[in-house]
């Protein structure tokens, strides 16, 4: 006999044990994160890989792997026919899209539904409705959730976009209607910048999502970005897992995320999480999702509680580990259970928050050169290991960072009793995370975490655009004398022993005398 709360529906035919072999339609750290959850649940895993990823860590981590095409994402990770064919050939019965790539493509979810593959995410219809900014806004308004003024003009020509900007009113954001992650997004403050911004946004949107349709939205000045993790199941239950503060963004790309938000009072937290649950209920949401809000700055009368629905992400988020950090729950594991038809493992009252978690995203990019993405071989890569610190990564020492993919190398998440303890713990972990061969933003992340405004929790979405250049400029470039001394010691030993660096350019050599005397390096 089924519990009375379980509604009779088609999905009741789906049993939790139905997922036996999961294809992960992604790469990098998120593919490995999903594989870890599968191992705990006893689910077999199928990785997919492009030409460039044949020796990538996510391939080695899975039980089996299927080649899906050349390095160009459009012909591999973004190819629905190739992914479905891979799932068929590997005998998979379910597919997890991860984030990015096709994770918010209703077409992939639909293709899975047609191929009788369990799609680990909401139904294609929900993805489509939330992917349409107009439809999402209309739904939110009818559910009593406040929205920011904006529109997707029917006329997508340059002229049509100009008229839409006029209607919405400057300042505005133009952004890809099809996706998030800061790709294909431009802010416009002066009418003279409209055409350039529109064309650049359209090109980036087309390149990233295969769809150049643009949305024009009023820019809420210097808001905070607060998002609420929600979760729904096939049985009508929807819960929230509190908020994440993601205001530390550089050009709309999140850099540091945390939970709880230092900005929310208990009253506003209750209102914003309640609005998120209403939003999810309005679309009969299933599986993990995130409702993003802009929290406006305090107005003249001191009201600091106005928030607006921004968008709903119908997938797992990059920053989900901070929620796992404060709740102790495993979101990916729950995604798989819920996708297979099981009831959500938690009632709302059972979801509690303890302490504070902060995540830093380690990117292959050079803060000293305008944050240019970096590619190349990683010569040395050692992750920090300490209590309260989690590292989710998709790269390994001697691996290649490909020019074709997102430059995210790893996420470092620190959890502690208080925000300040978590902050210090994260800084300590980042200082013990050497990555050589490819420039990264680690020193920049430390600079952000040590910035007085971040320490005080006084951040908004304009914080890094205003302070980022100054933080990057403070990164030391001159090696301290003892670092030069260590290099000289390595040089000297290699000369004396005629040791050639190994194939990976490592200075290690097993026959070395571990001691070397070096005088006079002190200044």
């Amino acid at each position, binding site marked *: 006999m089924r519990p009375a709360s379980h509604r009779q529906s088609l999905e009741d035919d789906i049993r939790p044990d139905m997922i036996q072999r999961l294809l992960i339609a992604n790469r990098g750290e998120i593919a490995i994160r999903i594989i870890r959850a599968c191992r705990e649940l006893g689910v077999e895993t199928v990785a997919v890989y492009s030409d460039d990823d044949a020796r990538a860590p996510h391939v080695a981590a899975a039980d089996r792997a299927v080649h899906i095409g050349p390095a160009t994402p459009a012909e591999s990770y973004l190819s629905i026919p190739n992914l479905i064919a891979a799932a068929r050939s590997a005998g998979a019965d379910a597919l997890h899209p991860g984030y990015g790539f096709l994770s918010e493509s209703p077409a992939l979810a639909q293709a899975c539904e047609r191929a009788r593959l369990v799609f680990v995410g909401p139904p294609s219809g929900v993805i489509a409705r939330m992917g349409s900014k107009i439809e999402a806004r209309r739904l939110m308004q009818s559910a009593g959730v406040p929205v920011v003024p904006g529109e997707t003009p029917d006329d997508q020509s340059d002229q049509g976009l100009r008229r839409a900007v006029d209607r919405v009113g400057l300042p505005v954001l133009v952004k890809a209607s099809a996706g998030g992650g800061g790709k294909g997004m431009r802010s416009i403050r002066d009418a003279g910048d409209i055409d350039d911004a529109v064309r650049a946004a359209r090109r980036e949107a087309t390149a990233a999502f295969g769809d150049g349709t643009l949305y024009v939205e009023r820019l809420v000045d210097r808001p905070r970005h607060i998002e609420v993790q929600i979760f729904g199941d096939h049985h009508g239950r929807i819960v929230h897992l509190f908020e994440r503060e993601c205001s530390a963004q550089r050009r709309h790309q999140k850099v540091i995320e945390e939970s709880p938000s230092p900005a929310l009072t208990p009253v506003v937290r209750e209102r914003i999480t309640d609005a998120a649950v209403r939003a999810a209920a309005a679309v009969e949401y299933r599986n993990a999702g995130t409702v993003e809000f802009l929290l406006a700055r305090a107005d003249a009368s001191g009201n600091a509680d106005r928030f607006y629905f921004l968008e709903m992400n119908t997938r797992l988020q990059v920053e989900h580990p901070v929620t796992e950090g404060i709740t102790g729950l495993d979101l990916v594991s729950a995604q798989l259970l819920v996708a297979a038809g099981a009831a959500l493992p938690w009632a709302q009252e059972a979801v509690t928050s303890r302490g504070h978690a902060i995540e830093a995203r380690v990117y292959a990019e050079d803060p000293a050169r305008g944050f*240019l993405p970096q590619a190349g071989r990683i010569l040395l890569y050692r992750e920090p290991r300490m209590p309260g610190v989690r590292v989710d990564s998709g790269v390994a020492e001697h691996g290649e960072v490909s020019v074709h993919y997102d430059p995210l190398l790893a996420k470092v998440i620190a959890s502690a009793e208080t925000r300040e303890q978590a902050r210090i713990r994260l800084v300590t972990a980042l200082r013990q995370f050497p990555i050589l*061969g490819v420039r990264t933003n680690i020193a920049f992340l430390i600079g952000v975490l040590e910035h007085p405004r971040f320490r005080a929790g006084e951040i908004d979405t304009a914080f890094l655009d205003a302070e980022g250049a100054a933080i990057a400029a403070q990164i030391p470039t001159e090696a301290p004398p003892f670092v030069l001394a260590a290099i000289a010691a390595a040089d000297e030993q290699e000369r004396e022993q005629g040791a050639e660096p190994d194939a990976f350019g490592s200075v290690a050599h097993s026959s070395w005398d571990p*001691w070397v005397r070096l005088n006079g390096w002190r200044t």
Partner: protein
Amino acid sequence: MPEDRIERSAAGVFSVMVDNRREIIYLAGPPSDRWAAWNGNVYRVSADTGTRSGQHVSPLGPAGHSLVAPMPATVIAVLVAPGARVAKGESLILLEAMKMELPIRALGDATVKAIHCRAGDLVQADQELVELE
């Protein structure tokens, strides 16, 4: 451990005592191009140029100069033609790499002498794209 001793404690890992603290230094790369990490900072030390610092040495001068690709990328647009007068900061070439657009801008007022790439080209790091005079 004596203060002036540098110990190699593992592959690529060195330690040294500085002011009663053990500092851990990670090294990689050949002597001509060493990478070092210490305390969250990374230094690239080139023996060839003698620049014992992590500063990237730009090969570009401000006036008559050529612009090179900063990384492997695809040329998505060439915005100027030979003979064109360009102003400092003007975008000359649009590159695309890792899903991001990278504009290549003039470092000073100049005239375009030659263009060495076309839209659609895959270019390598440090490959010359535009010559200015």
